[in-house]
């Protein structure tokens, strides 16, 4: 922290740009004067109890607390001195009192080097010690696996208390007792059960609250700071990575591009990165061909040779059976655009490869605004609206950033949140209409009591997520939403933008939707393909699990192809899933290609707001791991050498699904990202061309089917359940999820 304490300023009538209620301290900051402070924080309410920010006002007999004083009234009253002898003396004395009970254990304190108290004592403190009495001792509190407490160091700034009450919405932390005996804590032994609890580590100006997963690892000055983005949810919030010796040490919130303000980040963002480097991660390749010895740690060259020899053999073998043979590449949505493009080119070049996505998605991707979070993060737009409908979305876990925005809007008043879905504590007041999707029908038909409220509301916002469109009745839901917009004038199109918001669950959902809607993997693909190639965590998705279970139940007939090839490209493998898979799909060869994790990768992702985020590689990969694009480029180059006999389509011809062709976006997206071989673009319809007709715009509820099932939140366990690959291997996240599940159940073990 740099203190600019040489500046003094006088009331200048030109300086009228500040807001009505700006505290003096904030105004000083705009002038480049840093007033030392502890309790004041820009995003929290003002408490004014640390007294560190005292400044001198010309007409005031006493120094004033600059965080609790209005800048306008102060300047109207007289000149302000931020570095007068009175102010210096006041700071000195305040610091002396703060240090009365603060232990002098900076050498063993994790905050050392980034501690406000340390810095300010150096700048403003008294060099002598005048108190020789005993210091207060406070018992440490156990508030969970994220935050380590050393409560003796606490200087009672109450930032954490205010954060818990105002931002996190879990009012578990408080200041108990009075006077000398007051303590920050939870009173009863309790875990601070918030998904944002890690932020109190940053907030604490001293070493009272420090990071529990990484104690005594580093000093601030040893770390290299690199900006990156959050990988755990759809927002791609900027973060700061701190590196030491090619290792990620800690993650702090980064600066927003537009506002240049730091944000709050969730515990998952902050601490789940240890899953990337966990012992479960596989960093060496292996080949398992059902013989006694499996080949571990093959070189990449050998690996690819092995892979393509097998493929070539299969291709030739199957030629005799007159079966078109193919390799199905199955991928997840958390893959970068570059890799996606490369895969697309690969599949167009060699139709031997087929591209499938692991989970179905019936989201309408015609227009970009159908799958973006259009308005709800824009503060001006949120301020203009007074109703928000959350349809089957739990913003607290699926997008903590969104939840914070909604909460701050809710605290300003005149805002009603209506949720359709399971009951859940969103940390702000909300009305749950029903957990049944049928309620949409009654809303559309105008039978519901809330219809009147919708009509009276101004600029209502609908937030949903991409996951509910994976339901079987997705088309029904989307048509319902469409009619809601049309018939009840629910989502007014002010400023030409739709107030329908879709929150995506992974970093690149939007990029994926922009690109194309791939076909979902089905049993047919398993049956017809000679090999299956899983990229990233697509192997352990629920859809693949479902297919696997159905196969185990003999739901499907036996396959034509024996001796299948299984290729897994990922940083980890679920062993139980793997053995099941091998058993039921008759896999003879299993190849594992270790790939890199998020921070070892460069890539482009489009987040749920439609912003393009570029990530650069910040650490060198462990072991044999290679980036996805490196591996796929290699696959590409090797497949050029082999002429597959089952390339049943001519190369450089693009196959479009007749269903797909009307989805304009997919064509545009394709044009956008795969420009390389568009010169000789011809379309070939593989399926029968359906007659193109405009959708009947008149609402007919009978035609669109809605299931009577409950809307369930897809993310039941925030810490380990998400769609990112590594959090379920993170020991911190596992501890957190264990505790949260223990606290959310009625059963005591």
């Amino acid at each position, binding site marked *: 922290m740099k203190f600019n304490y040489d500046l003094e300023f006088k009331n200048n009538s030109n300086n009228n740009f500040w807001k009505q209620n700006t505290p003096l301290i904030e105004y000083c900051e705009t002038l480049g004067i840093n007033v030392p402070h502890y309790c004041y924080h820009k995003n929290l309410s003002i408490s004014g109890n640390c007294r560190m920010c005292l400044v001198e006002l010309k007409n005031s007999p006493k120094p004033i607390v600059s965080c609790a004083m209005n800048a306008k009234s102060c300047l109207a009253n007289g000149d302000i001195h931020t570095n007068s002898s009175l102010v210096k003396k006041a700071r000195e004395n305040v610091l002396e009192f703060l240090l009365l009970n603060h232990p002098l254990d900076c050498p063993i304190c994790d905050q050392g080097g980034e501690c406000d108290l340390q810095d300010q004592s150096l700048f403003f403190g008294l060099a002598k010690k005048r108190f020789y009495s*005993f210091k207060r001792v406070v*018992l440490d509190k156990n508030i969970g696996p994220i935050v380590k407490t050393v409560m003796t160091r606490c200087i009672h700034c109450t930032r954490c208390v205010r954060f818990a009450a105002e931002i996190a919405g879990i009012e578990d932390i408080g200041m108990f007792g*009075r006077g000398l005996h*007051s303590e920050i804590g939870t009173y*009863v*032994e309790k875990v601070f059960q918030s998904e944002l609890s890690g932020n109190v580590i940053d907030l604490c100006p001293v070493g009272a609250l420090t990071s529990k997963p990484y104690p005594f690892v580093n000093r601030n000055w040893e770390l290299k700071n690199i900006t990156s983005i959050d990988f755990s949810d759809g927002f791609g919030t900027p973060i700061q990575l701190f590196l030491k010796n090619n290792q990620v040490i800690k993650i702090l919130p980064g600066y927003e591009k537009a506002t240049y303000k730091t944000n709050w980040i969730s515990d998952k963002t902050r601490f789940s990165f240890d899953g990337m480097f966990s012992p479960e991660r596989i960093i060496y390749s292996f080949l398992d061909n059902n013989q006694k010895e499996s080949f571990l740690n093959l070189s990449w060259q050998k690996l690819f040779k092995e892979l393509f020899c097998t493929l070539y053999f299969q291709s030739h073998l199957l030629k005799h059976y007159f079966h078109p043979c193919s390799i199905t590449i199955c991928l997840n949505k958390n893959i970068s655009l570059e890799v996606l493009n490369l895969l697309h080119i690969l599949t167009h070049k060699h139709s031997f490869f087929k591209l499938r996505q692991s989970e179905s998605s019936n989201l309408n991707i015609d227009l970009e605004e159908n799958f973006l979070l259009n308005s709800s993060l824009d503060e001006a737009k949120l301020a203009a609206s007074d109703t928000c409908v959350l349809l089957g979305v739990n913003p607290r876990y699926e997008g903590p950033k969104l939840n914070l925005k909604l909460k701050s809007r809710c605290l300003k008043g005149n805002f009603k949140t209506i949720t359709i879905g399971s009951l859940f504590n969103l940390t702000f007041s909300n009305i749950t209409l029903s957990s049944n999707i049928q309620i949409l029908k009654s809303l559309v038909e105008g039978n519901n009591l809330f219809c009147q409220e919708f009509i009276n509301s101004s600029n209502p916002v609908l937030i949903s997520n991409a996951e509910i469109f994976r339901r079987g009745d997705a088309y029904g839901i989307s048509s319902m939403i469409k009619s809601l917009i049309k018939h009840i004038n629910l989502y007014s199109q002010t400023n030409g933008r739709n107030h329908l918001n879709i929150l995506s669950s992974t970093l690149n959902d939007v990029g994926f939707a922009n690109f194309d809607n791939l076909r979902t993997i089905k049993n047919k693909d398993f049956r017809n393909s000679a090999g299956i190639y899983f990229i990233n965590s697509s192997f352990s998705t629920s859809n693949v699990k479902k297919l696997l279970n159905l196969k185990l139940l003999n739901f499907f007939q036996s396959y034509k192809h024996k001796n299948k090839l299984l290729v897994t490209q990922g940083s980890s493998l679920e062993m139980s899933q793997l053995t099941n898979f091998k058993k039921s799909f008759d896999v003879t060869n299993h190849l594992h290609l270790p790939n890199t994790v998020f921070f070892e990768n460069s890539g482009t992702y489009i987040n749920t707001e439609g912003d393009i985020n570029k990530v650069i590689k910040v650490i060198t990969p462990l072991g044999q791991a290679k980036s996805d694009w490196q591996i796929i480029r290699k696959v590409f180059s090797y497949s050029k050498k082999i002429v597959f006999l089952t390339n049943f389509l001519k190369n450089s011809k693009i196959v479009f699904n007749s269903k797909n062709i009307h989805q304009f976006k997919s064509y545009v997206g394709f044009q956008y990202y795969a420009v390389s071989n568009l010169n000789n673009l011809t379309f070939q319809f593989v399926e029968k061309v359906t007659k193109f007709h405009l959708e009947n715009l008149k609402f007919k509820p009978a035609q669109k089917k809605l299931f009577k099932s409950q809307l369930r939140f897809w993310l039941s366990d925030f810490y380990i359940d998400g769609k990112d690959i590594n959090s379920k291997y993170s020991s911190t996240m596992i501890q957190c999820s264990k505790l949260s599940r223990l606290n959310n159940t009625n059963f005591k073990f």
Partner: protein
Amino acid sequence: MMSAARLLARRLPSAANRANAAGQLRSMGHAQSFHINTPDNTPETYFDFTEENYQYVNKVLSKYPANYKQSAIIPLLDLAQRQHGGWLPVAAMDKVASIVEAAPSRVYEVASFYTMFNRTKVGKYFIQLCGTTPCMICGSEDIKKTIEKHLGIKNGETTKDGMFTLLEVECLGACANAPMVQLNDDYYECLTPKTMVELLEACKEGKPPAMGKWGSLPMNGQVSCEGPLGKTSLWEVPEPPKVNVERFKDGAVDPASVKAHMSY
């Protein structure tokens, strides 16, 4: 939790001794600033207001706007403490929190801030002995020794039968009639070791002497704080202070109605 309790048991007496020896700190009647589970005081313990007390709860709540229910925290905590024999278990605080729709920690903060809320179990007769300067000069040390000797407890302890708890506190504002003790809600003033023992014996029989005319009981026969020589001033009833008529244009306010309104 056990470890915390054990740590505290190990730490607190020594800290108190050290402080007393150095003469710098006094206990100031404070309890620890966090909860320790005991068999009769865990968050899972059952507590609920009685039927009659719920009427009082509603009466208290009706005094505040619906969105400022938190204002009722202190009267409700007081009610809970009275119902629960002079002390507040965590369960009672949780109950109050649920009634006023505040977070439990907000109620814990209030309860732990005010010293009149006892968060650990106290005896049936909670003796708060004033030990501040005027009382100390007039012999509160002797009174303390008398109580300790008679009941066999030390400062801050409870008798084995759960009848008495002794706690030395700071000034209770009855300096004119020092030394004094506060027994639950009642002030017993002008004590001597002898009258203190009599008071304790009367309490043991379950019949503590009733309060006098002016809301307290000087144990030496005084009516109020007139002193040992009897009344020396205020022979006549003084004129009541003049009421600013301008302020009560709509009619006089009956003090009794104010008290009823405050639900005293």
